[in-house]
C-alpha cells in the first residue's frame, strides 16, 4: 500500500467512524482509561483528593490487615460459592420440571421469574421484613408451639450472610431457570427418542446426556452468576446495611464507603483493584477457552 493512499483510508467510511465515536470514547476513556487510572492511584496515599504521592504497596498491606476487608472477602466467598451451587442446581431442576410438557407452563414461568424484574433494594427490604424475628418467620414458628425456635439470620452475625443469600437466590434463580429451559429446549428431540428406545430412565438421560450437551448454557449461566456475585452491593445495603456490626460487609461496599464516606481514596482504589483482579482471574481463562482458539467474537 502506498503512502499516498493513507488519507483516503482515513476518510473512507467517515460517517460510520463519527457514529462510533461514543463507543470508541467509552471503550478507551472509561473502560481502559478509568480502570488504569484507578490501578495507578491505588499505589498512592490519596486521602480526600487523589494526589500523586507513591507509597508502593502500602495500601494493599493495610487492606489485607483490615478486619473489615477480610470479613468482606470471607462473605463474598461464602455467598459466591453458595449462589453458584444453588442457582445452577435450583435453576436446572426447575427448568427440568417445567420441561415435562405441563399445563400452565407460562404461568409458572412468570411466577418464578418476576423477582428478577425487581431491584435489589426492593428485594433486600422485603426479605428484611420477612426475616424480621419479631414478626416474621421466627414468630410464626414460635406461635405454632416451638417456643425455642430461633431463625433470625439478619440479627445473628454468624449466619447473616445466609439471610442475604436467601434473598439473592429468590431474586436471581428465575433468570438461570429461563436460560436452562432454553438450553434444554434447544436439544434435539431425536436424542430423547433414542434414549427412550434404549430404555434409559428420564433422570439418567438428563444427567448423562442432556447436561453434558448443555455445556454452553452452563458456562453462560456461570459467567452471569459470577459477575453478579462480585457486584453484590445494593442487596446488602438494603437488607442489612453491612450489619450486625460488620458481619455482612462485602467488597463493593468497602470500596464505596472508603471512597465516598471515609475520605480514604487510596484504600478504596486498592480494594477496587483487588475486585478487578478477582474478576480477571475468573474471566480471562473463560475468555481464553471460548475465544482463544477461534478468532471470532
Amino acid at each position, binding site marked *: 500500500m502506498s503512502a499516498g493512499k493513507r488519507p483516503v483510508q482515513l476518510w*473512507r467510511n467517515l*460517517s*460510520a*467512524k463519527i*457514529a*462510533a465515536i*461514543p463507543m*470508541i470514547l467509552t*471503550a*478507551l*476513556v*472509561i*473502560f481502559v*482509561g*478509568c*480502570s488504569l487510572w*484507578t*490501578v495507578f492511584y491505588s499505589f498512592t496515599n490519596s486521602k480526600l483528593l487523589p494526589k500523586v504521592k507513591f507509597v508502593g504497596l502500602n495500601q494493599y498491606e493495610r487492606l489485607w490487615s483490615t478486619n473489615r476487608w477480610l470479613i468482606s472477602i470471607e462473605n463474598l466467598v461464602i455467598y459466591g460459592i453458595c449462589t453458584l451451587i444453588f442457582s445452577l442446581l435450583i435453576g436446572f431442576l426447575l427448568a427440568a*420440571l*417445567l420441561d*415435562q410438557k*405441563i399445563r400452565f407452563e*407460562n404461568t409458572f414461568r*412468570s*411466577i*418464578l*421469574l*418476576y*423477582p428478577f424484574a*425487581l*431491584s*435489589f*433494594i*426492593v428485594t433486600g*427490604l*422485603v426479605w*428484611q*421484613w*420477612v426475616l*424480621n424475628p419479631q*414478626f416474621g418467620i421466627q414468630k410464626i414458628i414460635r*406461635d405454632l408451639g416451638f417456643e425455642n425456635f430461633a431463625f433470625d439470620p439478619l440479627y445473628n452475625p454468624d449466619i447473616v450472610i445466609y439471610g442475604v443469600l436467601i434473598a439473592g437466590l429468590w431474586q436471581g434463580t428465575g*433468570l438461570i431457570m*429461563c*436460560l436452562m429451559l*432454553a438450553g434444554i429446549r434447544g436439544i434435539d428431540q431425536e436424542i430423547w427418542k433414542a434414549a427412550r428406545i434404549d430404555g434409559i430412565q428420564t433422570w439418567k438421560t438428563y444427567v448423562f446426556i442432556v447436561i453434558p450437551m448443555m455445556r454452553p*448454557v452452563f458456562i453462560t449461566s456461570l459467567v452471569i452468576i459470577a*459477575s453478579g456475585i462480585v457486584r453484590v452491593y*445494593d442487596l446488602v445495603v*438494603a437488607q442489612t*446495611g453491612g450489619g450486625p456490626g460488620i458481619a455482612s460487609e462485602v467488597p*463493593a461496599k468497602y470500596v*464505596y464507603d472508603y*471512597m465516598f464516606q471515609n475520605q480514604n*481514596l487510596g484504600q*478504596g482504589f486498592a480494594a477496587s483493584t483487588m*475486585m478487578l483482579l478477582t*474478576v480477571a482471574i475468573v474471566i480471562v481463562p473463560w*475468555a481464553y477457552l471460548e475465544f482463544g482458539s477461534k478468532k471470532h*467474537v
Partner: protein
Amino acid sequence: MSETVSDPGLGEPFGPKPRKRFSRRNIFIYGTLIFVSLYYLLPLYVMVATSLKGMPEIRLGNVFAPPVDITFAPWVKAWAEACTGLNCDGLSRGFWNSVRITVPSVVVSIIIASVNGYALANWRFKGSDTFFTILIVGAFIPYQVMIYPIVIVLREIGLYGSIWGLVIVHSIFGMPILTLLFRNYFTSIPEELFKAARVDGASFWGIYFKIMLPMALPIFVVAIILQVTGIWNDFLFGVIYTKPDTYPMTVQLNNIVNSVQGVKEYNVNMAATILTGIVPLVIYFISGKLFVRGIAEGAVKG
C-alpha cells in the same frame, strides 16, 4: 410399539397411551411447582398485606396474617408524606426523579447503541472490532473500579450531580449489552438488502433510517424493556452521581426504610417498597415473552 399400527380400520387403539391425570408423576411435578411458586409469591403477598394493615395490627400479628382492617393510609403516607432527611414530601419526589432520569437515559443509550450496532454490523472499519471487543470485555469490569474517575470526568465537564451526568453514566454502562444486541440483530438482516441500497447510492444515515430502523422495531422494544427496568432499578449510580434533591426512587426508598430516626412504620415502608417495584413489575407482566427474550438474548450471546 402401538404407533406402528398404521391401519385404523383394525379397531386396535393406537397412538401414545393417554396419561392418567392424577398419576404419581403428575402429583409430584405439579406439587413441587405449586410449592415453589408459593414460595416465590410469598414476599409479594407479604408486601401487599403489610401495606394494607394499620400499625397496631402489625404489632399484634405476624407478617403472613391477612389484613383485617384494610387501610390505604400507609400508601398515601408513603407517596406524599414520608420523610428523608429534611424533605417530607414522600416518595413522589423520587418517583418523578426516576422518570426524569429513566426517560432520557433510555432514549440516549438506545440511540447510541443502535447506531453503534449498525456501524459494527454493516460499516466495519479498521479497528472497529477491537473497540467492540474492549467494550464487551469492559462489561465485566466491576463498576467500583471506574466510579471515581468518572466522578472527576463529570466534574470537569460540569455535569456532576445533575441528571444529565447520570444519563451519560447509564448510557456508558448500558452500551456493551445493547450494542451487542443491536449488532447481532443487524448482522442477521440479509446483506443483499444493504448492498442493494448502497448500489442505489444510499448513505450511512439513509440506510439506517430508511431500511434498518423500520426492520429493527422488535429489537428496539426488547432494548427499551431491558433499559427501563435496568435503569429504574439502579441504586449505585443514583447514589453516587446525583444529589439528595435528584435522588432516584430506589435511593430514596432505601433512605426512608433504613433511616435510624423515629419509630419504624412497617406498613408505610412496605407501601413504599411496592410503589418502587411497581413500574418494573408492570413492564414485566405486560411485556411477558419479550422480557424473557430480552434477557435471554442479552445473556446467552454475552
